[in-house]
């Protein structure tokens, strides 16, 4: 995870996002290191997520984004969910967590 200083609520969002797998490798997007930022503002009722993809041509890219959107809207119906696709910093395999590595080769 590259985001630092996250709140307890944002940590919960990361846990929710573990429901979203990359359909090709069957590992969740949090452990793959694809989530760069989660900002949950309970006053403004907004939930912003920055996500990246392993490659710009990823064949299931917008399916993953749609999945994130749906899961978050279902879990936080009061919040306006905004999922942003970002390319900086460029994703690399070092961003995969230990759990993700284990799952990848299970």
């Amino acid at each position, binding site marked *: 995870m590259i985001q630092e200083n996250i709140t307890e609520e944002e940590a919960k969002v990361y846990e929710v996002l573990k429901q*979203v*797998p990359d*359909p*090709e*490798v*069957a590992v969740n997007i949090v452990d793959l290191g694809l989530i760069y930022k989660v900002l949950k503002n309970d006053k403004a009722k907004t939930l912003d997520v920055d996500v990246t993809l*392993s*490659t*710009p*041509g*990823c*064949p*299931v*890219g*917008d*399916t993953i*984004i*749609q*999945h*994130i*959107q*749906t*899961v978050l809207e*279902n879990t936080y119906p009061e919040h306006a969910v905004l999922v*942003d*696709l970002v*390319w900086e910093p460029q994703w*690399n*395999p070092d961003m*995969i967590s230990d759990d993700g*590595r284990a799952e*990848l*080769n*299970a």
Partner: protein
Amino acid sequence: MQVGLSTKNAPSVWVVVPHFLIGTVSFLVASLFAIFNYQDLLGYHISGSVLSIVHLMILGWVSMIIFGALYQLIPVVMQVKLYSEKLAIITLGSLVVGLFFLIAAFLGYKFQLTNNFIVGGSLVIFAIILFAFNTFKSALSSNEKSISKFYIMASGVYLLLTVLLGLFTVINLSYNLLPVAHTEFMKTHAVIGLVGWFLMLVIGVAAKLMPMFLIVHRTREALLKWGFYLINAGLLIIFAVTFIKQVPEFIDVISFILIFIGLVLFLLFNYDVFSHRMRRKLDIGMKLSAIGLIMFALTTLSFIGTYFGNSAFGFPAGRIEIISGLLLIYGFFTGLILGQTYKTLPFIIWLFYYQKLVGKQKVPLVADLYSDKLATVHMYSFVASIVLFIAGLVFSIEIVLLFAAVAMFFTSMVYGINVYKMIFHKKIIK
């Protein structure tokens, strides 16, 4: 901002899927033909039945799947939409009808310009021109500067040269326009087709897909760049000298060495990718692809054998060329296609059925759309078939070739069942 997403650029399922269906049927029919004509492999290598099997495999199976897969992969490799889906459908129709006439012409055993050759050849050429145009227009609208794109664009040019040379060979046989032996044209037709069209395309696509599927980030792209220069130089020399009557032998040797080094560089690139992969455990698609690449290494070795000639091995005329062709078409191309089918076809089917349902309902994974067990079965029968084919050819044993042909037909049937399962998938909502 959701730019560069290939799903938004993905072609319709109706463009891609028929290619896989027709390709699979061609593989089945070609494998069945081989059971009834396996003895021809030990004989004179330009028999009508061998040519019909080769063209059914090359045009009906390998080209068909490559066309379909490339329409799906253009958005992944070049990050643009396919230029025209209508053109892709017309291309498919022209290729299928043309192939039908061409196979009928080859089965007729007449090496003259028969009507079936004219109709079949013209339709295949028309299809290929449309395909090359569609690929080129897509590539030109892409800002990608990757080496993959240049390999794919070059392969389109060689594809055109291949079919034009094939047609010219047949015309020259009938009308004797150029005083060059038709075997020279046939040799260039085969080399430009196999190395220029197929290998360049496969290298271009593999350069993008192998690191993507195996999760490798830093690849040795310089190997591919040098490979691109060397293979092109070798092919252009071969093409140019075809039209010269007396060619010094060293020119042939130079072009052979240039292409050989280029292909070895591609193998080294893949070895590096496999060595540095994050995804250590290979799924069935990647296992089959890896087997295909091993077959390619063997093909490259057998190319050296063709240089030394059949007598050096105590083989009858044409045997080492048959072994090379078999390793390339049945071994490398077929192995890679069997594997990459599981990395492309289930995706487009999965996206068609489940894209709108993700997150709302529990949906299956992409790998749930086919049987892993069936794929494993045809992986073993495929390897067994290749081993038997090579053994039968090296030791000239007909019965072994029959077993090899039966094993390849079994492979095509089991693969066909899995393709059927994917294409006619029934939506699963858990």
